[in-house]
């Protein structure tokens, strides 16, 4: 059952097109995360769902009702802002009660809703404080409480953790995950540029880039089967290595050859017409292993070694000084800078992308 659906939604500011033909179905109870680099239109899309920005094309439906022209307060949504957006002159209680007071709800109803939200978020001791007397994490909880009190069909979060310090961010992220668990019926849309938040919270991730949806899928699906080079490099840290290669044999499995002598046979199907075409071979840094055999992917001199104990990260620079390849090996390896090393990876861990950047899985 779809509780929120976007059909060909567009947004332009004057002649500047910010979002193009966004199509997305969100089921009830999902926690959808919009992720993407800064400026890709995540906030804009969220604010269009909230009704804070006009929708310049397409249809937005919530519970199968067209919402394009419904005022924000009647869409059945609640939003949590990055800057908390608490009313500074009101106590925590009044902050949470404001919406219900505007809607002329009865005193007992308001008190019950606030008591419930305060219990869920452990805000009871702070109800009569002003926001300025709270810490950042507590303020964000009040902002979430204000959303809960509205009992919305859809919760919208716009980078709710990015104003918190690192430790608090982790704690609040776990709180949000628990909150979602305690409200399995509610739908949440969560915007972030942080892939860790996206991977840990999402039931499905929507990767946005330059106003388009690049891929929609469960977090591990995106990790294991990225649809294109953008998603491949955006999800995962360090980013996936992309090596230029040429197809030497097409068929059930595809054999590729790298310019510097590396080769691989990838269990991904390709057509006969692909033979000889240039592709990009993708391999995640953590999938690379050291090998002695002649069946290697890369053979190069190590430029930088970062020994973290838990892992050892090797950097291989290209001629222009960028990190051309990164390998992340588990455990401790005593490798000196400048050593020539051969790396390989299990064939099923390899990815192939055509010259347009699309994965061979999705062709």
């Amino acid at each position, binding site marked *: 059952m779809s509780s929120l659906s976007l059909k060909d939604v567009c947004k332009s500011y004057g002649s500047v097109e910010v979002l193009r033909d966004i199509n997305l179905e969100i089921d009830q109870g999902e926690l959808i995360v919009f992720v993407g680099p800064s400026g890709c239109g995540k906030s804009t899309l969220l604010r269009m769902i909230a009704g804070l920005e006009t929708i310049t094309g397409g249809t937005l439906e919530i519970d199968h009702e067209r919402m394009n022209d419904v005022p924000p*307060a009647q869409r059945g949504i609640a939003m949590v802002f990055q800057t*908390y957006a608490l*009313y*500074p*002159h*009101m*106590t925590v209680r009044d902050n949470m009660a404001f*919406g219900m007071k*505007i809607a002329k709800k009865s005193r007992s109803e308001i008190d019950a809703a606030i008591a419930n939200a305060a219990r869920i978020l452990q805000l009871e001791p702070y109800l009569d*404080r002003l926001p300025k007397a709270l810490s950042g994490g507590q303020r964000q909880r009040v902002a979430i409480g204000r959303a809960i009190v509205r009992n919305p069909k859809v919760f919208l979060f716009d980078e709710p953790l990015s104003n918190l310090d690192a430790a608090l961010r982790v704690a609040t992220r776990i709180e949000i995950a628990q909150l979602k668990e305690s409200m399995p019926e509610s739908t949440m849309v969560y915007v972030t540029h942080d892939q860790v938040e996206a991977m840990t919270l999402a039931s499905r991730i929507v990767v946005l880039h330059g106003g388009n949806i690049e891929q929609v899928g469960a977090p591990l699906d995106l990790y294991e089967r990225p649809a294109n080079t953008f998603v491949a490099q955006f999800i995962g840290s360090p980013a996936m290595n992309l090596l230029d290669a040429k197809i030497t044999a097409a068929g059930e499995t595809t054999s590729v050859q790298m310019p510097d002598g590396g080769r691989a046979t990838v269990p991904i199907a390709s057509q006969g017409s692909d033979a000889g075409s240039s592709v990009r071979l993708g391999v995640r840094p953590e999938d690379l292993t050291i090998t002695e055999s002649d069946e290697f992917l890369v053979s190069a001199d190590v430029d930088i070694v970062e020994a973290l104990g838990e892992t050892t990260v090797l950097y291989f620079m290209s001629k222009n000084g960028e990190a051309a390849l990164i390998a992340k090996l588990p455990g401790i390896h005593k490798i000196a800078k400048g050593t020539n090393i051969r790396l390989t990876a299990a064939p099923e861990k390899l990815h192939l992308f055509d010259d347009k950047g699309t994965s061979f899985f999705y062709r």
Partner: protein
Amino acid sequence: MNPALQGVITIIVGVGGCIGYFYLSNQFLDKVLFPARGKHIGRNINRANMIRPWLFLFPAIFALALYLGYPVIETLRLSFTDRSLDGAFVGFDNYAQMASEPKFWEAMRNNMLWLIIVPAMSTAFGLLAAQLTDRIAWGNVAKSFIFMPMAISFVGASVIFKLIYDTRPANQDQIGVLNAIWLMFEGGPGSYLFLRLLPAGIVICFALLMAYVLYLALKPLFRREAGAGGSWWSVPLRLFAGFVAAWMIWLSAKSVFSVLAAEFAYGSPQTWLTLPFWNSFFLMVVLIWIQTGFAMVILSAALRGIPEETIEAAILDGANPFQIFFRIKVPQIMGTIVVVWTTITLVVLKVFDIVFAMTNGQWETQVLANYMYDKLFRANDWGVGSASAIVIMVLVLPILVWNVYNARKEMS
């Protein structure tokens, strides 16, 4: 000598004198008094740095003491002496004499009226203008027009409004705008609407506003809100505010009937500035016209400082524009509103030029500052004149202290 040349010389002497003073005094401190060499170099540098701030403050402190501190003390002394007894000390005689003069009480009463109406109206109009001009494309042009009166001197503004209030004999064309409008009323339904119902409505609105103020002032006394700690003086202050509000309600309730029943002389031009009681309001309009620009500029900056997200959150909470304005925006800029209000209050308490230029305190428009001028420079009675000056200062002082207190709180 050519006055322009004199001006240039004054500037050179003034600025050069300042630079010379700061340079030479610091040189003296560092080279002669506490030289940064020899046995006690560390101690000398520390001492020089302790004295240095006072070198910079000295000119300001000296000028303030000479031109503000000394006059205050001298005025206080003069207010206890009598001119006809060769300046003998007469205690509170001058104050007693002043208190027995009806003109003094007229000035007091008028000042109180000014004090309530001008800051309230200026702030309200300023806030309205700030909010509305922010929402339209040509808002900045409108703002400059509203701000322009600030650039006109009080006397200049008085001359403009004297023309607006001007009266010509009945058989001539009226050049005063107000009389021209007045002559359009002839006693029909339009006159009833604009001259009876509308003023009565305004008075009733004012009474309701005061009732709300009363409620706001007294509410926390009955329902102690935890967390929002109040100072010890907040209780008497709230009681006083409540009392003033109740008094205002009583006054407006009384005047509603007189407004509705008033008799008007339709068709004959009025000499507005000689109508007792009303003429004070015609004078106030001048100051409101000037101060609205000031209030608008400050409040507009404050409105822009409100975080956009709080307004968006209120939109999502379902608040309409009025609720957003009164329950989200205004409370957030309350500190600034108070500062604007008290700043205008200070201007009002000292108001002199407008009254002096337009009525000179005749026809029951006297105010304290003009009363003081009358006594001091026309009657040459320095005793009573100084006494009234002291009265003005005593009235201004608490508001000034409060204003500074609020302004500092706003800044931190």
